[in-house]
């Protein structure tokens, strides 16, 4: 029972982290129709910038400044890159963001090298918040949960309660009309892109100390983020939330409970073959849940695509 | 009594709460030229999209030569001999004019998804494509990318693509929209020429074109057909005058 609670907390941390990325990605996608392949690269930049700032000014300044820089860079990418490529169509846009992701990874290696950075949890938060049945929960995890939830409440407030939020919501569905009403839609696009990437930056700042700050970090999380928004339904913010939490919990639970495939198969009445070592299916029989935890999201995605192509919360495409 | 080419039975379509098509019954005979007119927002294009399965109807049926089309995809309907054009020019802008028409011929000539035939080795394919280009007067533009043609030429190409497959029911959605007078006359003549002996259903705003071309006219207002009949009868129908022509007259004044 206690273990379940611990896993719930761990899964929540992962899920909220994923959501911080998938929210920005979804917002950008539904507004501009661009799936920003480099989104996770901005997450990586957030971590690296925060590390660099934290050396001089400490963790908290990093948390404050790094997302700002990332957001400004994101806005710049929209203004000088995407807007230019936009005229060629959606596929070149996607290719552009893909190339950008490659380039940012190379750039990060160019500046910081290939090794992991010693970016770590600030001392203030480096203690055990509480323990459940002998499993200690670090305060930093609680901090991560709070900060992500706080950001979302803020985002929700801005989107639904402020004038800017109203204009953004309108521009999501009717960009031309909004433009005709005298609003500067390109500016709104740039702003949304900037905010979306800044959110990814925040995620990088707070995830860097736990998940590691290294050049491959964008790729590790990036493809999971895409899977998340496909599962949730492209363009649906609620879908992104549900799918993020779902993936967070599924992977956490799969990792902590060692369920062997042979047990499941035996459980449903299929006996293990006698010649297991030579059987062609031996890999299937010997698989355990921690082994496949990392590919579960992909399996889930393929299932969703086959049985519900529009995603959990997506609108049916006409 | 022969089976009508196209039959609509209690066709309805709602988008959310808005009922756009509110029960349309219509029979269009074989070889008839039928025009659907009506004020803006009456649902003419929606009706077209329902017939060609671009949208699924909320209720009701469409029959082509007596055969129920429910649940069929656009490409399946096309294979049954119904072809349509679009209000907004809908061609393959990056392909040449010749290729545009040739693509329209492939299925009809039985090439299906074959990968063992080479398109430019087929004399028949090339010849029938050229014949259609000749019909729509675009032979000189043959090798240009379709996107570089003038608007009127693109509309002509659109009609060419629509008729190329040899479908016997042709549906044209505002073929003369946005054209000058001379262009309109040119397209009208073209339509007369290429739909010879075929069933034609068209949505059109230009009354001159409608009265020139149509054997019968249906007037669609707020998702319902309020009158169907010969042009002269429809023109004389007081309800039509009130709902549509009157309005048109007012705007002209």
């Amino acid at each position, binding site marked *: 029972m206690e273990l379940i609670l611990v896993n719930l907390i761990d899964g929540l941390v992962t899920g909220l982290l994923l959501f911080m990325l998938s929210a920005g990605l979804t917002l950008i996608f539904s507004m501009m129709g661009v799936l920003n392949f480099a989104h996770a690269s901005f997450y990586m930049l957030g971590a690296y910038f925060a590390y660099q700032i934290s050396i001089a000014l400490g963790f908290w300044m990093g948390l404050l400044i790094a997302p700002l820089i990332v957001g400004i860079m994101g806005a710049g990418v929209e203004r000088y890159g995407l807007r230019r490529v936009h005229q060629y169509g959606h596929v070149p846009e996607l290719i552009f963001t893909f190339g950008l992701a490659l380039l940012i990874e190379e750039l990060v290696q160019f500046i910081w090298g290939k090794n992991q950075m010693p970016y770590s949890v600030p001392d203030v938060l480096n203690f055990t918040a509480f323990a459940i049945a002998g499993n200690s929960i670090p305060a930093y995890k609680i901090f991560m949960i709070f900060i992500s939830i706080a950001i979302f409440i803020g985002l929700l407030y801005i989107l639904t309660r402020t004038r800017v939020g109203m204009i953004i919501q309108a521009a999501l569905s009717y960009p031309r009309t909004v433009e005709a009403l005298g609003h500067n839609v390109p500016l709104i696009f740039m702003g949304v892109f900037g905010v979306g990437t800044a959110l990814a930056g925040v995620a990088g700042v707070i995830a860097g100390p736990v998940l590691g700050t290294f050049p491959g970090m964008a790729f590790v999380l990036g493809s999971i983020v895409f899977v998340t928004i496909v599962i949730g339904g492209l363009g649906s913010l609620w879908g992104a939330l549900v799918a993020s939490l779902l993936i967070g919990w599924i992977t956490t639970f799969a990792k902590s409970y060692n369920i062997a495939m042979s047990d499941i198969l035996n459980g449903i009445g299929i006996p293990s073959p006698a010649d297991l070592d030579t059987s062609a299916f031996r*890999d299937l029989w010997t698989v355990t849940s921690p*082994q496949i935890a990392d590919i579960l999201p992909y399996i889930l995605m*393929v299932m969703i695509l086959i049985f519900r192509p529009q995603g959990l919360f997506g609108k049916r495409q006409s | 009594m022969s089976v009508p080419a196209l039959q609509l039975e209690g066709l309805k379509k709602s988008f959310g709460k808005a009922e756009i098509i509110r029960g349309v019954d219509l029979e269009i005979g074989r070889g008839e030229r039928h025009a659907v007119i009506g004020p803006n927002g009456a649902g003419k294009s929606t009706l077209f999209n329902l017939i060609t399965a671009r949208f699924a109807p909320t209720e009701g049926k469409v029959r082509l030569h007596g055969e129920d089309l429910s649940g069929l995809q656009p490409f399946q309907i096309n294979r049954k001999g119904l072809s349509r054009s679009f209000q907004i020019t809908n061609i393959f802008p*990056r*392909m040449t004019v010749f290729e545009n028409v040739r693509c329209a011929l492939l299925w009809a000539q039985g090439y299906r*998804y074959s990968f063992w035939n080479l398109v430019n080795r087929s004399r028949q394919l090339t010849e029938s494509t050229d014949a259609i280009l000749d019909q729509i007067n675009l032979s000189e533009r043959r090798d240009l*990318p379709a996107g570089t043609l003038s608007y009127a030429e693109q509309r002509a190409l659109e009609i060419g693509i629509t008729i190329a497959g040899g479908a016997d029911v042709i549906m044209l959605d505002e073929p003369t929209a946005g054209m000058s007078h001379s262009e309109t006359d040119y397209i009208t003549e073209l339509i007369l020429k290429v739909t010879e002996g075929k069933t034609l259903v068209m949505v059109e705003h230009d009354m001159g074109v409608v009265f020139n071309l149509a054997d019968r006219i249906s007037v669609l207002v707020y998702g319902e057909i309020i009158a169907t009949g010969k042009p002269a009868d429809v023109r004389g129908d007081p309800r039509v005058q009130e709902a549509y022509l009157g309005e048109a007259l007012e705007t002209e004044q």
Partner: protein
Amino acid sequence: MTDTNVKDPARSKEQITTDPSKPAQRMGAGSMTLTLTPWLIGAVLLAILPFVFTSNSALTIMNQMWITVIFALAYNMLLGQGGMLSFGHAVYAGVGGFACMHIMNASDFFASFPLPVLPIFGGLFGMGLALIVGSFSTRSAGTVFAMISLGVGELIAASSVIVVAFFGGEEGISGDRTYAMPFFGNEFLQQIDVYYLISFWVIVSAALMYLWSRTPVGRMANAVRDNPERAEFLGYSARWVRFYSFVASGFFAGIAGGLFAINYEILTEENLNTASSGIILLVTFLGGVGFFFGPIIGAIVFTLVQTVLSLETDLWAFYAGTLFVATVMFFPGGLAGLMMMHVPAFKLGKAGYLVRPYIRTLIPAAIGTLGLCALVEMTFHVRHAATGDTQMTLFWIPFDSHAILPWVIAAAIALIGLGIARATTPALRDAWNEANTAGDRS
């Protein structure tokens, strides 16, 4: 959704007809000589290249190049011809390769046919996988297709560590090509034998892929790419057209994978992962997706850049990435597009007008870029070289990377070079306009 294609003039200017058939059309269906010529030249070139570049390393590079050519052409059946962007195409080549590896290791079966036949099995396995994945992934093009391809690619790449029986886990699987039935007495012991085997398959696959683009389903792939809705109203199901392209592309990718297995005799997870899929996208796009021969140029240029540049600098991937992003932003037609841009000038007989302006602009630009690269290399050296190591060599000149002078020189070269290029650009633009306008300017 589709109407923007037509209306946006900026876009239509950049449009490049993916229509390798155009010359053939103008000649009519009868004459085959002109269509055959490039293939014959290609075959002759392939045959004599080993006599020109005799070294072993040259052979290695060329083998890799031709395998990449097949893979890139297969990839372009999706991207260029069908408008489908795949982020996971390496798995089709990879699975084809792994299958061939297993066949190599099944000695009885392997000994029953000659080695040149093996790639067909790779193709069949690649096609088989494409049949399965395509059945649900080709429902739509664009973003959704791209995402599915990425997810499926990741899934298969990640399973390679789990399904050890097929993928061999971390160390992959290896085999020995010489156990096949001798082919006219040849056991493919030498690199050169493999070279001719690969060359044979390059010509055959490229020709088949070219012919594919001339078939009804190949033509409709273009139509569906440009306007899927219109294609549906012409009797073709966009989904099935995409599906056929996808399956065919999987087949040829599998052939490339089979050749990879023959050439390297080992396959690992690296042959499946997203990095490999990304590289083939890069290669194809760099070469140009708008023309059939684009991917061929891309594969040749990229392989050269990769092998030559990676010997010279650690930063080659950085340069390749920059080049790629610049291509997407400024030359979406790729190298093939750049080449074909000059066709009108040649037709007007005015290509000569461009030579001098090009020299005046491009040479300073190249020198300036080299200056920039020098700055980049020096920065990298200062940041990452071992402490105390201040000596570096650039362009055969050894110097101290911590001294001021080299920085000043590199910066000056960059500034002056790019400055001259910038100053001469208007003249180049004028010459370009002149060369592309019919008749004499009075």
